C-alpha cells in the first residue's frame, strides 16, 4: 500500500497547490516543496523499516523489497501492480530529489498561474514515480503516457518563444512511439494468453514468454523504439533539443533529470529481459546507435550557440553511454549505466538551472551575447565550471565513474565500439570548455547589471556539487543498492553479446 500512498501524496499535493493559490500567490511553491519533502520522508521511512529479507516474486529474482497487487481489469487480467527493488528505489529517490531542485529553480522564475505550474510539476513527478514502480505492463504504459500530459502543459504554457512547436514535437514523438509500445504490449500479452490460457499483463507472468523469432523481434522493436525515443538515442533525439530549449527551467530539469531516465529504465527492466533473444540479435545495432549518439551529441553540442541547446545535446551524448552500457549487459557496464542515470540527472539538472538563471538575468540564451560573466558573477562561474568539468567526465565526480564503468565493461565485449565511444570524452572536453569560454570567460561586457547567485541558488548548487563529489569518490552505496537487481536481471538474461573480443584484439597485427 505504501507505494500507492507515495503516488497519492504527489497527486494530492498537486490539487492542494492549485487551491493554495487562491489564498496566496507564493503559497503553491511552499505546498509543492512540502509535498515533495513529505513524500521523500515517507519513502525513506517505509524503506528504513522494511523486513531485511527481500520478498520473492515468481522466479524474477529475489531482489524485491515491496510488492503490491490489486485486481483492476480482470477482463484482461490487468492488475494494479506496483513493486519496488533497489533500482526503482534509487530512481524514485532521484526523482524526488530532482523534484526539489526543480521547485527551487522555478521559485522566482514562474509568476503566471503559480498553482497550476506546481501542480503539473508534482503530477509529472507522480507519473514518473509510477513508471518506476509499475509492474503491470498496462499500468506501466498508463503512467508512461500520463506523465507526458503535465509535462506537455509545462512546456506549452510556461515555455519560451517557440513553445508551441517544441511541445507538439515532444508530445508527438513520445506518443507515437508509445502507441507502438502499446501494440507490442498487447501482442505480447495475447501471445502469452494463448500459451498459458489466461490473460495477464503482469511483468512477472510475461517474463519468459516465448514468441517465434520473427514476432519477438518486431515486438521488441516496438518497446525499443518507445524507450530509445525517450532516452533519447541518436536518430530519434531531435525532439529533445527543442523541448529542453523551450521548456521553463524546472521543466528542463525534470526532462533531463528524470524523464529521460524512464527510457533507460524501460530498456533495462522491460525490453531486454522480456526479449532476450531478439535483444541479443539487436545488441550490436543498439550499441552502434549508442556510440553514434555519443559522438553526434558531442559534435552538435559544440556547434550550438544557445546555452540550453548545448546542454541538451550534451545529454544526447551522455545518454548514448547509457545505451552502450545497457546493451553491453555485463555487471560493470550495467552499473555504469545506472550510475550514469543518477550522475547525469544531477549534473545536467544543474546546468539547466544555470541556463535558466542566466536567461532570467540576461533574457537571452545566446552565448555570444554573454562572455566574461565570471567577472560579474564569480560564484555562478565557479558552479558552471564545476558542472562543466563534471559533464566532461572529470575523475572524482560521478559522471566519470559512470562513463568509465560503462566503457570498461563495454571493452570486454566490443573493443572497437568502445574506442569510438571513448572519442566522446574528447568531444565532451571540447564543448564543455567552449561553453565556459563563451559564457564566462573572455572580455566582460561593460557596465552590465548581472546579479550573482543568491543564497537559495547557491544552496541548491552546493547540494548538487556535494552529491556529484560523493558519487565520484564513494559511489559504493549506490552500487550496492543496484547490485542485487542487476544480478537478478542477469539471471534472467545471462548475456547479450558473445564474449570473444580478446581474439579480436590479438588478431590485430602490428
Amino acid at each position, binding site marked *: 500500500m505504501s507505494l500507492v500512498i507515495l503516488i497519492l501524496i504527489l497527486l494530492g499535493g498537486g490539487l492542494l497547490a492549485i487551491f493554495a493559490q487562491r489564498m496566496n500567490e507564493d503559497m503553491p511553491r511552499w505546498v509543492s516543496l512540502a509535498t515533495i519533502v513529505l513524500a521523500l520522508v515517507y519513502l525513506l521511512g517505509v524503506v528504513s523499516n522494511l523486513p531485511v529479507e527481500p520478498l520473492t516474486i515468481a522466479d524474477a529474482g529475489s531482489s524485491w523489497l515491496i510488492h503490491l497487487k490489486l485486481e483492476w481489469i480482470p477482463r484482461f487480467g490487468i492488475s494494479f501492480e506496483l513493486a519496488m527493488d533497489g533500482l526503482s528505489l534509487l530512481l524514485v529517490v532521484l526523482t524526488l530529489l530532482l523534484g526539489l531542485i526543480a521547485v527551487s529553480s522555478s521559485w522566482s522564475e514562474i509568476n503566471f498561474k503559480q498553482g497550476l505550474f506546481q501542480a503539473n510539476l508534482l503530477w509529472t513527478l507522480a507519473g514518473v514515480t509510477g513508471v518506476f514502480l509499475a509492474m503491470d505492463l498496462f499500468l506501466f504504459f498508463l503512467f508512461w503516457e500520463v506523465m507526458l500530459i503535465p509535462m506537455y502543459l509545462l512546456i506549452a504554457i510556461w515555455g519560451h518563444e517557440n513553445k508551441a512547436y517544441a511541445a507538439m514535437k515532444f508530445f508527438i514523438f513520445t506518443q507515437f512511439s508509445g502507441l507502438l509500445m502499446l501494440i507490442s504490449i498487447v501482442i505480447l500479452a495475447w501471445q502469452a494468453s494463448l500459451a498459458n490460457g489466461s490473460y495477464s499483463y503482469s511483468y512477472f507472468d510475461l517474463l519468459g514468454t516465448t514468441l517465434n523469432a520473427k514476432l519477438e523481434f518486431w515486438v521488441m522493436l516496438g518497446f525499443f523504439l518507445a524507450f530509445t525515443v525517450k532516452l533519447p538515442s*541518436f*536518430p530519434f*533525439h*531531435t525532439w529533445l*533539443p527543442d523541448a529542453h530549449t523551450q521548456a521553463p527551467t524546472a521543466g528542463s530539469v525534470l526532462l533531463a533529470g528524470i524523464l529521460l531516465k524512464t527510457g533507460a529504465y524501460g530498456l533495462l527492466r522491460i525490453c531486454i529481459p522480456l526479449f532476450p533473444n531478439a535483444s541479443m540479435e539487436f545488441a550490436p545495432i543498439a550499441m552502434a546507435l549508442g556510440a553514434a549518439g555519443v559522438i*553526434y551529441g558531442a*559534435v*552538435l553540442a*559544440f*556547434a*550550438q550557440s544557445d546555452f540550453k541547446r548545448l546542454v541538451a545535446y550534451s545529454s544526447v551524448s551522455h545518454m548514448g553511454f547509457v545505451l552502450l552500457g545497457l546493451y553491453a549487459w555485463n*555487471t*560493470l557496464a550495467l*552499473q555504469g549505466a545506472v550510475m550514469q542515470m543518477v550522475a547525469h540527472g544531477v549534473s545536467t539538472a544543474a546546468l539547466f538551472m544555470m541556463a535558466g538563471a542566466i536567461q532570467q538575468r540576461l533574457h537571452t540564451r545566446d552565448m555570444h551575447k554573454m562572455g*566574461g560573466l*565570471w*567577472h560579474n558573477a*564569480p*560564484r555562478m562561474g*565557479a558552479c558552471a565550471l564545476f558542472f562543466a*568539468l563534471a559533464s566532461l567526465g*572529470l*575523475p*572524482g565526480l560521478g559522471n*566519470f*565513474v559512470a562513463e*568509465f*564503468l560503462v*566503457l*570498461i565493461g563495454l*571493452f*570486454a565485449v566490443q*573493443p572497437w565500439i*568502445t*574506442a569510438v565511444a*571513448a*572519442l566522446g*570524452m*574528447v568531444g565532451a*572536453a*571540447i564543448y564543455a*570548455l*567552449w561553453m565556459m*569560454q563563451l559564457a*564566462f*570567460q*573572455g*572580455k*566582460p561586457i561593460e557596465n552590465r547589471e548581472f546579479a550573482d547567485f543568491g543564497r537559495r541558488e547557491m544552496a541548491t548548487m552546493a547540494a548538487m556539487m556535494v552529491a556529484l563529489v560523493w558519487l565520484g*569518490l*564513494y*559511489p*559504493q552505496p549506490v*552500487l550496492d543498492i543496484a547490485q542485487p537487481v542487476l544480478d537478478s536481471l542477469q539471471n534472467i538474461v545471462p548475456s547479450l553479446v558473445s564474449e570473444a573480443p*580478446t581474439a579480436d*584484439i*590479438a588478431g*590485430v*597485427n*602490428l
Partner: protein
Amino acid sequence: MNTLSLIPALPLFSAILLMVSAGRLPKQISAILGVGSVGLSALCVAMVAMGFMADGQVREITLWTWIAIEDFTPAIAFYVDGLTIVMMSVITGVGFLIHLYSVEFMASDESFSRYFAYMNLFVAAMLLLVMADNLLLLYMGWEGVGVCSYLLVGFWYRDPDNGQAARKAFVVTRVGDTAMALGLFLLFTELGTLDIQPLMAAANSQWQVGGTLPVLATALLLGGALGKSAQLPLHTWLPDAMAGPTPVSALIHAATMVTAGVYLIARTHELFLLAPATLEAVAWLGLATLLLAAFAALAQNDIKRILAYSTISQIGYMFLALGVGAFSAGIFHLMTHAFFKALLFLAAGAVIHCLHHEHNIFRMGGLRTRLPVVFASFLIGSAALAALPFTSGFYSKDSILLAAWSLPDIGPTLWAGGLLGALLTAIYSFRLVFVVFFGEANTEPDKQAGWKMAVPLIILCVLAAAGGWISQPLDDVFPAQGHDVVHVIEYIGIAVPLIGLLLAYLLFLGKQLSLSSLTESSMGKALQDFWLKGWRIDDLYHNLLVRPFTGFARLCRNEPVDLFYNSIAGALRWSHRSLSSIQTGELRWYATSMVFGLIVLVAIMLRNAS
C-alpha cells in the same frame, strides 16, 4: 591521519578553503594558506623520505575502497617507493619555492586567492598522480593536473587568446588521455586488475616478451604519456601554454606535470620491457622531439617560448633515456631538469616582472648589471641546461647519452642525435643569455626582485649547480643496467656543449661570425620562419583536424536528422491540402464521388463473384 595521507591532503584542503572563501580572505592569509600548505606537505615528504632512507621499506596505505564491483576493486590507496619519493620531493620542494616566488609575482593580481587555490589543487593532484597505487587513481590525478593546467593557463580569462591556449592544452592532452584510458580498459580486461604492482606481476606471468597485447597496451599508455609530456606528435600545446603566469609555467609546464608521462612509463616500465617495439618507438620519438624542439628553440624571440621549446626537447632526452632502458637516468634528468628549468623560468619571470611584461628578448639586453641576482641564476640555469661540465644537467644528460651509446645497433644513431641536440641546446641557451643580459640595454627595469623572488632563485641555483651529486633511491625500483664506460664517448660528451657555448659566443656576443648572411638569404628566412612557427605542425593540425571538425559541426548545426522528420510532416501537409481541395462543397460533385465509390465497390464484387 598519518603523514602519508597528509601529503596530498594539506594542499587539497587549503585549495578547498581558498575556493570556498571565494576571495573574501585578505591576501596575507591566502598567501600563508597557499604557501604554508605546500611547505607543510614538503616537510611531511621530507619525514617520509628520511624514514625511507632509513629502512628502505615501501610505504603503502589504503584509505577506502573507491569502487568494488565483482573483481574490479580500485581503492583510494597510496604506494610510496623510491621513485615516488623522488617525484614527491621534486613536486613539493620545487613547488614550495615556486609558491613562495608567486606571492610576490602575483602580489598585484586581483584574484590572488583564486591563483593559490588552483596552484594548491594542482600540487594535490600531482601528488595523487605519483602516489597512486592503482592506475585508476593515477588517472584521476592525471586528469586533475590537466584541469589545473587548463585553469592556470587560462588564469587571465579576459583575454580570449589565453582561453584558447588553455583549451588547446586540455584538449590535446585529452586526446592522449583517451588513448591511455583505452590502455587501462585493455589491461583490466586482460589482466583483471588495475593495481600497479599486481598488474606488473600478472603481466610478467601471463604475457611473453614482444606479444601483441603488451605492445598494444603499452602503445596506448604511451599515447597518454606523449600527450602529457608534450612529445611528438602531441607537443603543440606546450608553447601556447606559456600564456599562463610565469610561475605556473615553471611549476606545471617545466618541473612537474609535463614530466608525468616520464613518470608513467617509469612506473609501468615492467610492461614496457615486455614490449621492446614500444620501447624503441619511445626512444625514436624522444630523439625526434628533442631535435625538432631544439631547432624550433633556436628561432624563437619570446623568452618564454624559448624555454618552452627547450623543455620539450629536454623531456625528449628523458624519453630517449626511457627508450634505451636507462630508467633511472631518465628520472635523474627529470629531477635535475626540474631544478634548472624551474630556475630558468623563475628567472625569466623575474625579468618579465621587472621589465613590465616584456617578452621579446631583442627588446631586452644589458641586464647583467641591472639585475645581478637574476643574471646569476640565469647563467647557472643555462649552464645546467646546456650540460656544461659539473652542473647537474651534465651528469644526467651524460648518463643518458652513455646509455644510448651502449645500446646495440641503433644505439650510436640515437647517441649521435642526442649529441647534436646537446650542441643545439648549448647554442640556444647561451643565445638567450647573451642577448638578454649582455649588449646595450633596450628597456630599463622599473623594479627589482624582492626577497620572496630572490630566495627561491638562490636555492634553485644551488640545486641546479649541485643537484648532480644527489643520489636517488631508485636502485630497487628499476633493473640495474651497467654499461662499460667508453672514455672517448665521455670526452665527446663533455666537449660538444662547450663547442656550442663557443659558437653561441661567436654568433651573438662577439659577432665574429654573422648570422645575417644566413638569415638574409631567402632560404634562411624561410627556414627561420619555419622553425619560429614550430615546424608548422600547428598549421598542419589546424587544416587536418580542427577545420574539418568545425566544418562538420557547422554543417550539422541545424540538426540534419530533422530533415527526415520534417519531410514526413511536409508530406502530410501536402496530402492534407490536396485532399481538402477535393472538398469543393459542390453537391453534384459529392454525389458523383458517391457514385464513383459505389461503382468501384460493385466492380470489386463482380470481379470476385464466381
